[in-house]
């Protein structure tokens, strides 16, 4: 309890220092290119009052969620399959290496050219950028599955679904957690690029718009608002989820 309190205090202190530093530098510079905290707060209020802020935040959030779910689902399925099947892995591995090394921007541009400037192309492009990372992480997980428990489930005739749900997936939990963690932060950054290049709403679109108007305060307002949302997702959704699935580790072992 005491240490948690101390940790929170340090985080608050650190953030306050950053805020003060920002305020001092902006005040000294007195330039449009670096507005101070008050100007950004003002811009945030204006956008919030007009309702624009929520519309665009929601649009981006929905894309992040959709791309995240698709990438996790497809990436995990492929990763587990590759981890369990050596010859399939040998065949697919070169594709994976290729895909891992194609820049996100290229995938986005090609998706828009081939599938049109639509939502499916946008979300698909983001998911495709993330899938190779999920595949690699979950492949590692599937390779480290305990053969003893697999044999146990065979002897007790668990069948495919029961084995997957009760024996395989729990063992992959740390790998899911790691893929999710790195996934959510990567995805939201790519979603902004997708919006900038070919969508007419979302945080990325707004940042592009205010970039052309050279309105740095509003750009920062949108950025901070979305960072805040992603941190909330991390602290109030991902971390409790992880804690719940690790509860058996806390005891013994």
């Amino acid at each position, binding site marked *: 309890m005491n240490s948690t309190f101390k940790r929170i205090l340090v985080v608050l202190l650190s953030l306050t220092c950053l805020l003060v530093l920002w305020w001092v530098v902006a005040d000294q510079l007195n330039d449009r290119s670096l507005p101070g905290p008050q100007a950004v707060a003002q811009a945030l209020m204006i956008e919030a009052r007009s309702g624009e802020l929520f519309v665009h935040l929601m649009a981006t959030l929905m894309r992040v969620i959709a791309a995240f779910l698709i990438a996790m689902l497809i990436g995990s399925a492929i990763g587990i399959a590759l981890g369990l099947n050596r010859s399939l892995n040998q065949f697919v591995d070169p594709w994976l290496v290729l895909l891992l090394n194609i820049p996100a921007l290229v995938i986005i541009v090609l998706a828009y050219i081939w599938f049109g400037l639509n939502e499916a192309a946008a979300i698909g492009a983001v998911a495709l950028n993330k899938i190779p990372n999920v595949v690699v992480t979950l492949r590692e997980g599937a390779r480290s599955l305990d053969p003893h428990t697999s044999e146990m489930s065979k002897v*007790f005739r668990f069948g495919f679904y029961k084995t997957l749900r009760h024996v395989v997936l729990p063992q992959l939990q740390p790998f899911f957690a790691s893929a999710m963690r790195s996934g959510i932060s990567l995805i939201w950054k790519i979603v902004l690029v997708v919006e900038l290049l070919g969508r007419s709403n979302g945080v990325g679109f707004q940042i592009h718009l205010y970039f052309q108007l050279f309105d740095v305060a509003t750009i920062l307002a949108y950025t901070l608002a979305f960072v805040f949302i992603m941190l909330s997702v991390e602290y109030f959704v991902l971390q409790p989820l992880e804690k719940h699935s690790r509860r058996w580790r806390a005891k013994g072992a």
Partner: protein
Amino acid sequence: MATTETLTTDILTADIRSKVFDASEGGVMHAIDNLNFSLKSETFTCVIGPSGCGKTTTLRLLLGLDPDFDGKIDFPQSQTMTAVFQEPRLLPWRTVEQNVRLVLPADGKGVALDELFEELGLEDVRQFYPGELSLGMARRAALARAFAVMPDLLILDEPFVSLDDATAERLRELLLSLWKSTSCTALMVTHNVEEAAMLADEIIVLSARPATELGKIALDVPQADRDTAYIKQMCLKLRQIGLVE
């Protein structure tokens, strides 16, 4: 007469002509060479042999975990076979009770869990995770899981190894009483001659690798009536057959 007939039915027949493993440097390692035996219904059979002679390999073949061998194993599909492994092999993310419940078929066929837990002295640790259990308790939980489905054939792979004498003794008694009350057939691998002489109706002695049968003895005194003298006598008999430690 009918009863005697059902009692003498073979539940499993194994005819393993050979089992080889690919060894390093391109060679092969012969693990089993011509091993034939059958298990009579509701009997307790022990397989003993020196360490590394292929006992565990034999069990893996019987359990269907390794289909790559030359020979045939007959066990009716309609019957259930379960196992207690050397390591308890409980799922660490499920409590003792959840581990046991997991193996029950969807239609709920199985023994009354409350009684099973009580008999094995597991009532107090039902909600514990395997990581919180001692090896002895974890082995009890593994026994509970194996008996929960009312198996027709129970395979045990040195289930009492590396326990202290008193704990092993207590678990042997529990195993015998569960085996009696569920009237299943048991096949247990061990390298402990005394253990085999205490538990088995029939003991098969294996040679060093490649495993083949050196001989077998039938024990005609019921398990409950065996005294130290009888067990000593049986151990002597086993040592005369061969390579047992």
